[in-house]
């Protein structure tokens, strides 16, 4: 009897383990790709291509507050970014003064105008992005064209990327963003976010995919240039070849994709 019970327990244990690991294997295996395999996927024929997308901000062309507001509003309206009046706010694009933007460049003797002026800030789409390195779920990842993209569906909201980003480019949805958006939302073609996920500038990856320039570039009237850094003929390479440019915190080795003409 005793022996029988022991054997029973053994078999029960082994079968439970087998069932459990089978279930785990199914979870890990990701069967859905097979199930949905009756169609195929391709790029849009309108898509813009680049080996490495980069942005050049001509700070000399941003003179008044209206110049900044125009591009920021274009971005925030297009992406349904809420305007939250607390420290728990969301920003894809914003401005700050020289000493806050270029913290490495502590030269108090710069022209007064330069120190007092505002500068445009956004995600730098680094070549070596620390946020991608630290993300535990690959919710943020680098595309082949250099864009640091996000999958809001997968983000668990651990905020490791926010600690990792040396540029403060990321925002966390501490609350439901729709509470601070108009109804209907500013751009019904673009989703909002849900509480508990991180978000940031996407270099308008979904606009590039259909042949459009980023929303801020389009609204800037030539003050922001956008193009392929690997193409010597591109607008950004030409602008960088002819003007003096700086980047934020170059000593960290992240290789930002956003350049400032000063």
């Amino acid at each position, binding site marked *: 009897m005793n022996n029988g019970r022991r054997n029973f327990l053994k078999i029960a244990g082994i079968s439970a383990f087998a069932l459990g690991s089978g279930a785990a294997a199914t979870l890990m295996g990701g069967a859905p790709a097979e199930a949905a395999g009756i169609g195929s996927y391709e790029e849009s024929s309108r898509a813009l291509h680049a080996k490495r997308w980069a942005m050049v901000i001509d700070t000399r062309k941003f003179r008044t507050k209206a110049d900044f507001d125009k591009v920021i509003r274009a971005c925030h309206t297009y992406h349904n970014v809420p305007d939250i009046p607390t*420290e728990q706010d969301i920003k894809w694009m914003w401005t*700050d003064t020289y000493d806050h933007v270029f913290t490495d460049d*502590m030269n108090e003797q710069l022209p007064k105008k330069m120190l007092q002026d505002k500068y445009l800030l956004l995600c730098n789409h680094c070549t070596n992005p620390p946020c991608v390195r*630290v993300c535990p779920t690959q919710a943020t990842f680098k595309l082949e064209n250099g864009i640091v993209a996000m999958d809001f569906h997968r983000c668990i909201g651990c*905020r490791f990327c*926010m600690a990792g980003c040396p540029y*403060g480019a990321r925002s966390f949805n*501490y*609350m439901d963003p729709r509470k601070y958006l108009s109804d209907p939302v500013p751009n019904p073609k673009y989703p909002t976010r849900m509480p508990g996920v991180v978000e940031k500038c996407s270099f308008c990856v979904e606009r590039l995919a259909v042949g459009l320039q980023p929303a801020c570039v389009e609204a800037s009237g030539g003050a922001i240039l956008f193009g392929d850094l690997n193409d010597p003929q591109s607008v950004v390479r030409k602008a960088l070849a002819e003007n003096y440019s700086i980047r934020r915190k170059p000593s960290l080795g992240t290789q930002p994709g956003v350049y400032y003409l000063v």
Partner: protein
Amino acid sequence: MVEKLLKGPKCYYMWLLFLVAVIAVCGLVYIQQLMQGLTVTGMSRNVSWGLYISQFTYFVGVAASAVMLVLPAYFHHYKQFKRMIIFGEFMAIGAVVMCALFIVVDLGQPQRMANVMLHPSPNSVMFYDMIVLIGYLCLNAVIGWVTLEAERLDVDPPKWIKYLIYLSIIWAFSIHTVTAFLYAGLPGRHYWLTAIMAARFLSSAFCSGPAILLLLVLGLKRLTGFDPGKEAVKTLTVIITYAMCINVFFYLLEVFTAFYSGIPGHQHPLVYLFAGHGGSVPWVTWCMWAAVILAIGSLCVLIPPKLRENMNLLPWALGALVIASWIDKGLGLLIGGFTPTPFETFTNYMPTLMEVMVALGVYAIGLLVISLLWKIALDVKKEAGNF
């Protein structure tokens, strides 16, 4: 052995009831947090980690500290610790449970937690942290249970457990090293970007963890009469003293590097923590100075053998040490890491009442786990005549 949980004195039930009540109330607060989002906390865009992650960090240290009993007992055959080891291992289990819960309550989307396993990302330190913590939990559960079972049956533990114990010793170092890597590998966070971070974490863990254990065991002695042994207490106090000296030494190394090198980025967090910014003194500054005084005070008692062995003074010194190390690692580390911000600006962080209550709830769950496990251990020891 589980049946040992069912019979106990009245105060045992009252204690459990109290913990369950605390857990229930704090659980309600957590449900509020789930519904409203992390906006109920004091965290912000600039200070995006707060009390939860700092408590996680602190308790990984407490979990790792069990090794300060296990290592002398198994690598150096120091027999005096054998009576107490099971309490260290069971405390580690409670601490790891707390760590896991602190991560969960910090997540914005906890229902998607499994994504960490569904999309494994070996480039993320968080991925390794999950693995080492789960591994450490399993190791301690198996080792604790098997050795206790052997004690109950009055036989030697099976031979294979020894290898698991050796593994757990190395593993304990790894959990806190990996936790330090969460911080030490981030560019642009000056206060964290230091090669000595893991060493600091370990030294702070190896003084604060055993100090908490010793305080609890001394309390247990009053409550139940279980004597850990005079020699064991003495040796553990010496270990705590050395670890605390190293901990303070490491901190001073950071201060030297920051100020002698003259690099502003390295100085700013220290200046903010100890002197505030622009004439305004944040609340954390008072805590930091309190930590300095408590650390010095505890060392003044712990270093001279005469005072250290005075059993009336010892609990006070240990208490001061625990508070000092908690302020350093459970408050200062996080706040100094995020302030100044990447824009060299200052955003003050203060946990909200709801945030504190959720954290208290996690403490209560950890205490409940430890209480139940210790109850089993005590009753088994009583039965086996090893009381």
